[in-house]
Every structure is written in C-alpha cells, then in structure tokens.
C-alpha cells in the first residue's frame, strides 16, 4: 500500500472511531461518570503498544532505548493502575447488587 493510501485509510478509521466514541457512551447515568472516566483512562494505556514498539526496535541507539523504556514503565503504570482502580470502584456497586437485586439495574 502506498503511503498516501495508508494515510487515507488511517484517517477513515479515525473519523469512524470519533463517531463510535460519542455513540457508545451517550446514555451513561451520573453515578457511573467516575468509573467510566477511570475506565477510559485505563484504555488509553494502549500507548503501551507504542512504547513497546519503540523500545523494542532492533536498529536503534541508546537514547531511543532508554526513552522508549521509560515510556514502557509509565504506560504500564497507566494500564495496571487504571484497570485496578476502576475495578475497585465497581466492586462497591456489585456488593449492593447482591443485596438489592433490582437496585442499580433499575437506574
């Protein structure tokens, strides 16, 4: 694929992702705003893939490796911390669900 074609393809999926991002969370109750923010926060930890690609390159100098590895450390903290914090928040809701079967679902 030529570089121009690839770019056109990438921009296409970018635009589709914008619409999807708006659509998928359009109806979210206030009580889930905090967990949702935290959950999306974990998802952008996907930069870990970019960090791995840069840090793992074969032909590279020390600076690229070192900077890439620092990026790996930061992105891992984002991923693991993000998912764990979100799970802790949502654990609270589950507890109530078992006590009140029709509680949160009826919100």
């Amino acid at each position, binding site marked *: 694929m030529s570089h121009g074609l690839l770019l056109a393809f990438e921009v296409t999926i970018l635009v589709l*992702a914008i619409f999807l991002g708006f659509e998928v969370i*359009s109806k979210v109750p206030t009580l889930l705003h905090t967990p949702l923010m935290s959950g*999306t926060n974990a998802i952008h*930890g996907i930069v870990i893939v970019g960090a791995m690609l840069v840090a*793992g390159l074969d032909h590279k100098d020390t600076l690229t490796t070192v900077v890439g590895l620092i990026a790996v450390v930061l*992105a891992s903290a984002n991923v693991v911390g993000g998912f*764990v*914090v979100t799970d802790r928040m949502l654990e609270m809701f589950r*507890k109530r669900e078992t006590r*009140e079967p029709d509680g949160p679902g009826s919100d």
Partner: protein
Amino acid sequence: MGRVATDFAYLATIVAFILALKFLSSPATARRGNWIGAVGMLVAVAVTFAQKSVVSYWEILVGMAIGGAFGAVAARRVKMTAMPQMVALFNGVGGGAAALISLAEFHNIAPDPGRLHGDISVSIILSALIGAISFAGSMVAFAKLQELIQGRPIVYPGQQFVNGLLLAAVVAAGVAIVAGSEQQWLIVALIVGALILGVLFVLPIGGADMPVVISLLNAFTGLAAAATGFELENNVLIVSGMLVGASGTLLTILMGRAMNRSIANVLFGAFGQVTPQAAATAETDGGTVRSASAEDIAVMLAYAHKVVFIPGYGLAVAQAQHDVRQLADLLEQKGVEVSYAIHPVAGRMPGHMNVLLAEANVPYPQLEEMDDANAEFRRTDVAVVVGANDVVNPDARNNQGSPIYGMPILNVDQANAVVVLKRSMNPGFAGIENPLFYNPKTVMLFGDAKDSITKLIADVKSL
C-alpha cells in the same frame, strides 16, 4: 507474527475496548466491561511481543514489571476518597508515555533525510504536544487534590497573554519541524514548552473543578495515543486512542452540564475567585452563626418525622460513611423516615458519593437524586448536611455575583431545620462564602464529621 496476523489480533483488542465502553455505561454490566477491557489490553501486549521488530524482550518485561507493580500497589492502597487524584496520576503517566514515544521516534528516524513524511512529523508533534500538556496538567491536578499545593485558583495579571505567547512559541517550533527542520533541540524545546503550558493551564483552575479538568486531560491523553498510532502506523493505537478522545470529550461536557457550567467557563473562568461583589453581599448579610451541642441535635433528630442526610466531601475525608449509616439505622428504629440526598457532583467527582455510600452498604432506595430530593425538602423536618458546602449554597439561586450562581443545588434551606456538621467556619473547597450557615433555621455542629456523628449516635441511643 506477520503484519497481517498482528493487525487481525489487534482488531480483537479494538472490539474488546468498544464492548468495554458499552458495558461501562450501565451499572449492571460495568464491572464486566472493565474486565473485558483488561483482557483486550492483554491481547494487544501479547501480540506486540510476538512482532518480529520487537527484540528487547527482557528490558521491556523489566520496565513493565516496575510500572505495573507501582500501578497495582498505588491502586490497591489508595483510599476511596483519594480516587480522583489517583485517576489524575495514571492519566498523567499515560500522557507522558505518549510524549516520550514521540521523542524517541523523532530521534530514531530524523537522521535519515527524506524519511520523515509530512503526516508523520505532524503526528509526532501532536502527540508530543498533547501528551506533555496532559502529563504536566494531570500532575498539577494531582497536587491540588492531594493538597500539595493550594486548591484555589492561582491567577496573575496577563495570564492569558503569557499562555497565548507560550502556545504560539510551541506551535512555531512544531511548524519548523513540519517544514523539514530535523534539529533535535526543536522537539525537546517543544516538549518543555508544552510541559510549562500544561502547568500554567491548570494552575488557575479551582480545586472544585478538577474532576472536569481531569476528564478533559483524559480525553487529551486519548488523542495523544491516537497521534502515536499515526506515527507508528498502528491501527489499534489510532482507534483506541480516538475512542477515548471522543468519549472523554463527551463525558467532560456531561460533567460540566451537571454543574450547569460551560467547559470554557470551567477552563478560563478562574472559578472560585471571590469577586468583590459576592464578598460584600456575604458580609452585609452578616448575621450570626448558631452552634448547638450534640445532645440538642440528637433530640431534634430522634423526634423528627423525616430526616434527610446530605453527604459531601467532608464525610468522605472523615471516612464517616459507615457511622452515618449507623446513625440512620438507629433513627429508623425510632420510627424516623430517613433518606440521603445526593448532589450529582457531591464529593470531588460526579458519582463519587454513590460509590462511598455503596461501600457503607446504604440501601439503594434511600439514595435520592437531586430533583427527587428537592421535591421532598418542604416536608422534611431536619436536613443534616455532613461536610457538604457548595452544593447546598443558596447563593447559587439568589446571588448573581456569586461564582456558583446558576449551579443547581439541593434546596436544604426549605427544610424546617438544618443541621450543618463542619470542621470550622472556613469556606469550602471552592473558597466561597455560604449564607446557609447564617440562616436562622441553621444550627452548626463543629468538629470532625466522624467524631460528631459518633457523639450523635451515643446521644440518640441514650434518649
């Protein structure tokens, strides 16, 4: 693993993230959604390891172990009340990672003349710029919420002008890189400039608005991740980053709407600065503050028909949610009708208070959202405000000079009597005077929320 197989595997990650967002928007499925997201992330990491171009396994694994261990320990240890700043911190490091990827990528490909396509250099600049702003801004938000620096807006004359000038300089450095200059110092200067910009951007925003700011910076980090996707020609980064960018933007708007404020007003309004007019009104209203003993208040509560608790951040800080529930249970045994009125932005994040009260096993039907609660205050005997301030400030209805004028509030002043549990007469987190405290219907019980509630429990029991 070849490029084609890799991209198909990344598609699985993309689908997992979309499902995760979908499930996170409903209380019944939210936890499952988070798990699906985590599995999607694991797939992406495993697939990336399997790529031919990735050779330094051990270094990367060690890096992951360090970052992952820090994230896991911090996320496990943090108290529920400190959740917002923890989210800010994790968001910041993600932004920092995006900026560093750009720095490494530019350093790696710039030396070969002609290799830097125009669109690649644009995405390198965007992810460096947005990632660095998000990193620095999130760190300031963290410091403000952790009370390492003062929460009030920090303003000085010509602030917008200085910020504008700095932004212009950073953009100029970016344009020079796109124009073909492959000087390494330019990208370093751009990142340093963006870091300073991030700090200056968040400093003038008051602590009470931090959740909205964190949500916005969360969207920023998503955008930065999408930009690194263009740099590395990687679909999973483009789609996932943009999903967060778009949903984060929408979430920011929704949060602003819950406070009846536009995003522009949050970002540039230096909210919480006391305007001279508002201060003057508060003084002329003057009046006296009545305080009462725990015994008196216990009698008020025990002989009421209907009591409504209004929990705020002070309750969260004092970890008093369990004690409040005990007091509520005790009152119910005495035949008092008890409920909790939850303001959408009570605590420091929307939904924060629901999380805390759920932790204390408060029965769900007793939680009332703002509109339902407001319909009930007129037939309420005692409204007990536990560590809330701005969300019950009548100035939001009556005083046009007040910085929170127009924000929807809980109309506790319509109850027959109001009890305010508060540490001292200091103004709240946003630094605004509250005439509710001078209302003749109001009595104050000063002290730590937990201690005060414990005293009330003892006194109600002894009645």
